[in-house]
């Protein structure tokens, strides 16, 4: 176990040095953005080497921070370069994108509901993202926001149940699991609206 850890540490430091040098010589901003993702992979590798439940607990927020950081940096880059409203000459047109979404999205959403909790929400959210990306969307943001607001309230309420009536812990866990499922799904599905439209 300790030997694995040390070998991994050696590899991680080697990779970090390589990534650092390539970062230093890079002048193009978009290339730098791609290298940022490489740096985040290195960081996750370091954490994963711990190999316990602690590592898992640290990786999850690390991933969330990574993706939000990338999204923010990408938007800043688009605004800075003045290419915000650019439409690509030809949008991606693949036949599978027309036929697959309904069945694939429904499988993902059903499996996500079966999993429940945070990871279930992520899986179901991926299904919704996939559907919205492929099929386009109408403006229903108010509905999504309302649902996710009520889910938030239910999540907090579940914690109060757990604190005030500890004997009802099972009910509280179920409410919290369902609420976080809806919350994560709603938030993730917003990402699906990024394709094509210049006004979102």
């Amino acid at each position, binding site marked *: 176990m300790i*030997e694995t850890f040390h070998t991994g540490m050696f590899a991680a430091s080697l990779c970090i040095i390589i990534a650092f040098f390539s970062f230093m010589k890079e002048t193009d901003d*978009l290339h730098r953005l791609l290298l940022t993702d490489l740096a985040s992979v290195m960081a996750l590798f370091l954490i994963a080497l711990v190999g316990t439940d602690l590592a898992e607990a640290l*990786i999850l927020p690390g*991933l*969330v921070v990574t993706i939000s950081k990338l999204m923010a940096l990408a938007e800043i880059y688009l605004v800075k370069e003045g290419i915000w409203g650019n439409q690509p000459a030809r949008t991606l047109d693949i036949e599978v994108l027309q036929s697959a979404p309904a069945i694939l999205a429904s499988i993902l959403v059903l499996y996500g509901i079966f999993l429940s909790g945070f990871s279930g929400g992520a899986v179901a959210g991926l299904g919704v993202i996939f559907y919205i990306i492929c099929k386009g969307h109408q403006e229903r943001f108010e509905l999504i926001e309302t649902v996710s607001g009520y889910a938030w309230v239910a999540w907090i309420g579940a914690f109060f149940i757990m604190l005030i009536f500890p004997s009802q812990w099972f009910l509280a866990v179920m409410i919290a699991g369902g609420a976080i499922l809806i919350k994560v799904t709603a938030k993730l599905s917003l990402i699906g609206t990024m394709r094509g439209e210049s006004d979102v």
Partner: protein
Amino acid sequence: MSPEFIIGFGLIILGTVATAWPSPKDYITRLINLELPAFGILLVMLSFDETLALLTFIAVTAISTFLFVRVIEKKEARK
């Protein structure tokens, strides 16, 4: 050391080199090479039984690839 760890470990080192100095130096090549260390870290997580982290990493990788493709699309559209 399990075989998953050794393969993942090799993929991470090779993938880092490939991403740091991609051969035709353009965005798409770098983005595709970025998948190599990502796959390596998946194998490392697999060898340590970190299920939740693995699943979330897959989801986040899909979203970030989509994000990069969108930015590259807009960047190329100007030329």
